[in-house]
Every structure is written in C-alpha cells, then in structure tokens.
C-alpha cells in the first residue's frame, strides 16, 4: 500500500471493491435460494481478495481465492446440491416480525459499539515506523513476510493446527457416515449379504 496522500486511482479502486463487497454481502443475506446466496458470498470473497492485494497481503489474497472461494464454498455448494436445496423452500425462510426487530436492534447496537471503539487510540510504540512494511516486503517478498513469523514465533500453533485438522477429518467422517453402517461397525458384525 502506498503511504498517504493516496493517488486517485488507488482510492477509487479501494472504494469500488469495498462497495462490491458490501453490496454482494447484502444480496447474500437477502436471497431466498441457497445457491444464489452462496454465489453472492463467493463474489464477496473475491472482492475481499482484491482488497487484500491493495493492502499488500498478496499471499493472503491468493489463499483467500484458493481456500475460501475455491474449496470451502465448493463444499457448501456440494452440500446444497446433495440435499437438493437448490430451489427456494416453500416454508418461509426469513423469520417473522420479532426476529427482524431483534436483528435490527442488535445490528444497530453492534455498529454503535464499533463507532465508539473507533474513537480509541493505540499506543504509538506499537505502530511500525513509516515504510517498515515496505522494506520487509522488498527484503523477504510477499510469502516470506508471512512464513517468517509462522515458522518461528507461531511454530507451536502451526503444529497444533495439524491436530485440529486431523480431529476435523475424523469428526466429519464419523458424522457423515450412514447410521446403519455405523451400527454394524459398533456391533462388530461383518457385512454378510453385501
């Protein structure tokens, strides 16, 4: 990212992708069909990836497109297809009057809290010196900037992540199994008639 004052081109693109992200997320929560909602969410994620690039997080932007928009959303679409939920359901999906009122009140409270918090100031010694991040990016490259702390300061957390993923795999396989198969496995009987 360029230090202020920002060029017009940069500011324009930043606002453009911000508005795209905001509009797609609004479309996402208001669509009735789950497929349309999922595709609007993918659009939001692409706009966010563009914002990451503009904020100098190139590697995170690539991961956002590959993992979030690619892998996770494909799993969502796959489940929607598997459960045959592609059509808007006959039952009213959106909650009634009281649910909407509660959501509106909570949303306003949340925004007010964030507005109050935005008035707070951080300690100046926490802020990197001007141009420090540019120097790091030029020295290590976009991936090195992330990889360096990941494999030194956060190595333990990184290794624990693999345990988390293993548990998630085991949990997903156990939950996703059909119940008759699971019953056979617990009683220890082998399948005799196929």
């Amino acid at each position, binding site marked *: 990212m360029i230090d202020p004052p*920002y060029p017009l081109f940069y*500011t324009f693109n930043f606002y453009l992708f911000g508005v795209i*992200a*905001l509009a797609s*997320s609004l479309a*996402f*929560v208001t669509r009735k069909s789950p497929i349309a*909602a*999922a595709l609007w*969410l993918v659009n*939001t994620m692409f706009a*966010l990836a563009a*914002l*990451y690039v503009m904020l100098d*997080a190139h590697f*995170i932007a690539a*991961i956002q497109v590959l993992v*979030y928009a690619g892998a*996770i959303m494909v799993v*969502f679409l796959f*489940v*929607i297809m*598997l*459960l045959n*939920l592609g059509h808007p*359901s006959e*039952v009213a*999906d*959106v*909650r009634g009057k009281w*649910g*909407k009122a*509660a959501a509106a009140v*909570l949303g306003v409270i*949340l*925004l007010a809290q*964030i507005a109050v918090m*935005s008035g707070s100031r951080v300690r100046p010694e*926490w802020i*990197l010196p001007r141009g420090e*991040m540019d120097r*790091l990016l030029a020295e290590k490259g976009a991936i090195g*900037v*992330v990889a*360096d702390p*990941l494999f030194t*300061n*956060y190595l333990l957390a990184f290794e624990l*992540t693999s345990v*988390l*993923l293993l*548990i*998630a*795999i085991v*949990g*997903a396989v156990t*939950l*996703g199994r*059909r*119940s008759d198969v699971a019953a056979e496995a617990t009683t220890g009987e082998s399948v005799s008639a196929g």
Partner: protein
Amino acid sequence: MLAEALALSAALFTIGVVGVLIRRNAIIIFMCVELMLNAVNLSFVALSRYYGADGQVFVFFVMTVAAAEAAVGLAIIISIFRHRKTVNLQNINLLRG
C-alpha cells in the same frame, strides 16, 4: 485507507450477525458465520499493514479453523437432514423442553 477498511469490516460483520438472526435455513446461517470470519480477516489484514505481519499469520489460522468448521458443520447438517428431512431450524427443536 485503514479507517475505511475497518469500517467495511465492521459493516460486513454486522451483516453476518443480522443474517444469522433473520434466516432459518441452517446452511445459510452457516455461510453467515463464514462472512463474519471474513470480516475479521479483513481487519486483521488492514491492521497488519501498520502493526507488523503477525496479523497475516492469524488470518492463516482463522482460515484453517474455518475450513475445519465447514467440514464438521456440514457433516452435522447432513446428519440432521437424514433424520428430519429438513434444514429449517424452526423444525429442529429437539432440545426444546
């Protein structure tokens, strides 16, 4: 651009919360949670510009947790759908007394 990015992040998070509250489809509620995680990621990335690259490492971990959560959560939804033939949360009231 830090203030704009944080404001966008706050707006996206609020949209996610409102989505969780007004929808009844379990899969859409689940996607709203993903939207909230994305909003948090945006503020991490925006702040990492000023406070060092550690924020980007946290985004990495958040994405890992989101992937694990999506796998387990969708397995739970499939398993509920097998029993109740619906993903509408109004009909899933097993814990109600």
